[in-house]
């Protein structure tokens, strides 16, 4: 229960930070750059970066354990924790990919004219 409260408090801090940043973006006139899809993409990129860092850390720990013979118990605990994080991150990444996939067609319809893909057609005789 106590941990749950802490998590909720932390999440509300994130929400507040986001609200403040969106207000600033609105005052700057760039609020439309940060659509729901864009934020999801930022989060997905962040997950991938964290995943890369986790993979690197896992490789380092495994190398350390096999080559230098450091405290195996401690390293194993770290590895176990890392595995949990990696699984969560992979799961989250998949969930994000799915939700981005859902958002994409809707976002494509709402794209402003200036951002829609352009097709150039030249009219005239070929040289």
């Amino acid at each position: 229960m106590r941990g749950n409260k802490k998590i909720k408090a932390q999440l509300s801090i994130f929400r507040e930070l986001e609200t403040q940043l969106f207000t600033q973006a609105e005052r700057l006139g760039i609020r439309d750059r940060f659509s729901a899809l864009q934020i999801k993409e930022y989060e997905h990129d962040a997950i991938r970066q964290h995943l890369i860092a986790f993979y690197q850390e896992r490789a380092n720990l495994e190398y350390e354990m096999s080559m230098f013979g450091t405290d195996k118990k401690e390293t194993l605990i770290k590895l176990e924790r890392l595995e949990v994080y990696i699984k969560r991150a992979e799961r989250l990444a998949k969930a994000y990919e799915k939700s981005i996939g859902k958002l994409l067609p809707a976002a494509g319809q709402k794209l402003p004219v200036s951002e829609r893909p352009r097709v150039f057609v030249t009219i005239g005789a070929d040289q």
Partner: protein
Amino acid sequence: MSTAGATIDNGLAQEKLYAAVRSFSKPGKEESPTDQPSMTEETMSSLTWEEFGGKDGIKNYELKRNDAVYLSTISSALAEDEVEAASNRKRLKFREKAAAAVKDKLLELAMDIYSHNYFVAELAKMGAGILSFQLSLLGVQPGEISAIMQRAKREKMIAVQAGIKQVASEKVLFSIVTGAKIA
């Protein structure tokens, strides 16, 4: 008399000038009204004027009351020239330094104009107005001031974008570590 290349003993001259004005406006207790000198004819004080290079030595000029305003104006103008000359000679460049400091402050304040906090934004607007006025007094062109404001906006945009990315990154990391649902 040419003023070019001449230096004036400002402190001494001004002290004498003020003393003379005071003595005219507030006559001493010992003086009787009949003893008071005629305003137009009586000498107020003397101004010490030294030619540049000291070729002619020190000259004393008699001052009349009518000269007071003119002399105070010209002495302050000369004092300003003196400060400018001293700063150039010693490479101090007060004006440039002051302008640079005010420009930096303006950049910071102009970024706060887009703050999410209403009061901060309004105060920053006022501050930016005051600083841009000060900059114009320091001889900074209006184009340069508007360039500073635009640069502040660009930097704020970059900061906001970086902030949103940072929050997104921390949020997902928090979710990964604690297992909390963020979506």
